[in-house]
């Protein structure tokens, strides 16, 4: 090609000394830098050269991943344009951009409850197909329960690859439990009894038995769902009929309301950050709604008053009910309409590789989705709760896998919050939520009346 262009331009007149010097310098630099970077400039595939990848992610995660993005950009001659958004803003923007196929983004970071809507509607590319074309198989190092979150509808192929291994856990202050000679709670009734004992004994000194979230929507819903499941039911049965007007749901909400009375004042307005802060500040002794980012704070001596005093485990469950935790993973996917799908896939595979996952864990305290990283000795030495988190991940259940989950969560999260605030009775909250969720499922065609 070069010879051809030289000939067209009139012989060797363009190949002057300056050009030769520049070329030699570039070649020399490439040879010198080659061993440092994993992929030399000459090894970078053509589809990456000069590509621009637009990456939608949360505000919180954007600065955490930036060092990795910088490395990938340098190694591959790719520019990555990060578009950070707050959680709700990201969900809204992705919902509109993905459903309308605007092609605004090449890589998107998604909370796992969003996957049924985005993957189910085929708004995301099938990564499995893209990988098959390149002869790449999913790495068995991924925790299978977490990798499965990207496969929706089940068995149709991966449309998302998990990169944040969030799992909700039950956490308790072992020193307080021991001090009051209590048993570690196994059931939600045990939790209520222990919370009452702790609040009665210690609230005067600022310690409350339980922490939970009461803000309408995602917050109240996320605190309530493990309790509901702990009583042996779920939001839906296998025919997608809502199950909130059952005895088990009634018991679960009654228990949640009793727990709310034992929580620190302000439970009605408590969200995720406050619930974590209450735990690491030594204000609450137990919570069934603790996530890895909060565990990291609990174990961080610079902010925590309870380092080494907190244990974690499976969510409590009534006798005969299998205890389970809940996933809250973040996954990476490629929206339909992306003009840089190959580059986006290359980036996602690199980003979710064990090396990068370990960097994110060690440097940014982001829990991994790979078994090898969660078992890494150096990582376990730094974060002693990793084995417990890995066990919880292997036993974790996602939220109900329906494309209507966002609306469903908004409804039951609203009624649970209203019940906690004393605006409606438990029975009315459940009846209203059940009716509205039924309407949503009928409207979406998932439930036949």
């Amino acid at each position, binding site marked *: 090609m070069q010879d051809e262009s030289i000939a067209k331009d009139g012989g060797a007149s363009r190949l002057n000394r300056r050009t030769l010097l520049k070329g030699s310098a570039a070649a020399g630099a490439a040879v010198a830098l080659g061993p440092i970077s994993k992929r030399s400039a000459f090894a970078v595939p053509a589809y990456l050269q000069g590509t621009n990848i637009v990456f939608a992610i949360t505000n919180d995660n954007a600065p955490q991943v930036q060092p990795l993005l910088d490395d990938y950009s340098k190694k591959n001659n790719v520019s990555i344009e990060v578009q950070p958004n707050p959680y*709700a803003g990201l*969900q*809204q923007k992705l*919902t*509109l951009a993905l*459903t*309308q*196929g605007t092609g605004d983004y090449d890589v998107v970071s998604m909370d796992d409850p969003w996957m049924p809507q985005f993957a189910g*509607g*085929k*708004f995301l590319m099938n990564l499995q197909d893209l990988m098959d074309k390149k002869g790449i198989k999913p790495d068995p190092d991924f925790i299978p329960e977490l990798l499965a979150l990207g496969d929706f509808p089940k068995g149709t192929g991966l449309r998302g690859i998990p990169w944040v291994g969030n799992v909700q856990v039950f956490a308790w202050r072992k020193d307080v439990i021991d001090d009051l000679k209590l048993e570690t709670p196994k059931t939600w009734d045990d939790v209520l009894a222990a919370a009452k004992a702790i609040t009665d004994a210690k609230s005067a000194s600022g310690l409350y038995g339980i922490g939970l979230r*009461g*803000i*309408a*929507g995602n917050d109240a819903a996320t605190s309530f769902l493990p309790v509901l499941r702990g009583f042996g039911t779920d939001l839906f049965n296998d025919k997608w009929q809502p199950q909130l007007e059952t005895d088990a749901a009634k018991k679960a909400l009654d228990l949640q309301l009793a727990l709310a009375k034992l929580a*620190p*004042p*302000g*439970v*009605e*307005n*408590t*969200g995720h950050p406050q619930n974590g802060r209450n735990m690491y500040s030594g*204000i609450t002794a137990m919570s069934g709604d603790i996530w890895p980012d909060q565990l990291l704070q609990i174990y961080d001596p610079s902010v925590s008053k309870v380092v080494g005093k907190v244990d974690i485990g499976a969510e409590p469950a009534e006798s005969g009910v299998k205890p389970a935790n809940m996933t809250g993973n973040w996954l990476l996917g490629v929206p*339909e309409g992306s003009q840089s799908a190959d580059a986006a896939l290359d980036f996602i595979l690199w980003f979710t590789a064990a090396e990068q996952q370990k960097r994110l864990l060690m440097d940014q305290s982001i829990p991994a989705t790979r078994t090898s990283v969660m078992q890494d000795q150096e990582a376990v030495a730094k974060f002693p709760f990793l084995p417990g988190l890995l066990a919880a991940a292997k036993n974790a259940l996602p939220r109900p896998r329906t494309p209507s989950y*966002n*609306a469903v969560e*908004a*409804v039951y999260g*609203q009624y649970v*919050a*209203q*019940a*906690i*605030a*004393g*605006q409606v009775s438990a029975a009315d909250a459940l009846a209203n939520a059940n009716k509205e969720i039924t309407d*949503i499922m009928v*409207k979406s065609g998932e439930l036949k009346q």
Partner: protein
Amino acid sequence: MATIGTSLETEERELEPRDAMAASGGIPWWERNLAWLLVAPTIVLLIVFAIVPTIMLVRFAFSQVLLQRGGIKTVGVGFDNFARALQDPLVHDAVGITLRWVVVVTTLEVLLGLGLALLLAGNVRGRGIFASLLIIPIIMPPVAVSVAWLFAYDYTFGIFNYLLEQVGLAPVRWLSDPAIALYSMMAVDVWQATPFVFLLLYAAILSLPRDPYEAAAIDGAGRWHVFRTVTLPLLGPVLLVVVLLRFIDAARAFDKIYVMTRGGPGTSAYTMTLTIYNEAFAKFDFGYASALSFLFQIVMIVVGTIYVKRALADYSAPAE
């Protein structure tokens, strides 16, 4: 008739040379259409940002909106969304909460703003500094203001409960007690918007004519009497516009409530705007949210129009 005939003839004579120029192409096209060209950008902006969205809103309000691959699909549902709105207890509550918010914050802001304006319009020392300081809340972003107050209201770490404890009083659940939370947030709005009212009324008071005051002083009128019979009537038009501006802004209350409690505790601070937002972006029910939005707009337009017609009627210039 003769007069009319004469005038028409005169007009014809005056127009003759210009018409002749236009016919011969003497006046460039842009000059002939200058009026249209000048208003064209405004018309385009109005069409793009007001008329098209309103048409879409009305269309969505009568539909079930489905976000599907390849575009938005609408299924006509007639008046179902409106019927649902009339029966929705959340909407009934939201109307009551919005009304309460509008009445309380507008009243307090106007009274406090007027009081401050009257105070500083007198010969108060350092009034320039006070006036400058009072402007600070207006220039602060509402989200920053809300976050600052959120910390101040915190049950455990907040400054208000700390102060209450210092004087031996029990701490208050400022943002989590359903009976108090809405009023706590109203206080933030009053804190931020009162200076706006003050600023407009202060400027208006300073520009009032001095003669009526001198006449009142000669007649020996007291301060209250002067305020009631001179200041208030003269301030009337400005005051009524201020009330209208605050009413419209208060009815759209969203940012402070969203940041501080997201409408909580429970749904006790779900105003109309928050309810619409929740339906659109939490439940993704754009059809229902559009119907609520449409109803809200209609109510606001009707109330605003009646207010302007009734309240400002007394101040309209007499017909000549």
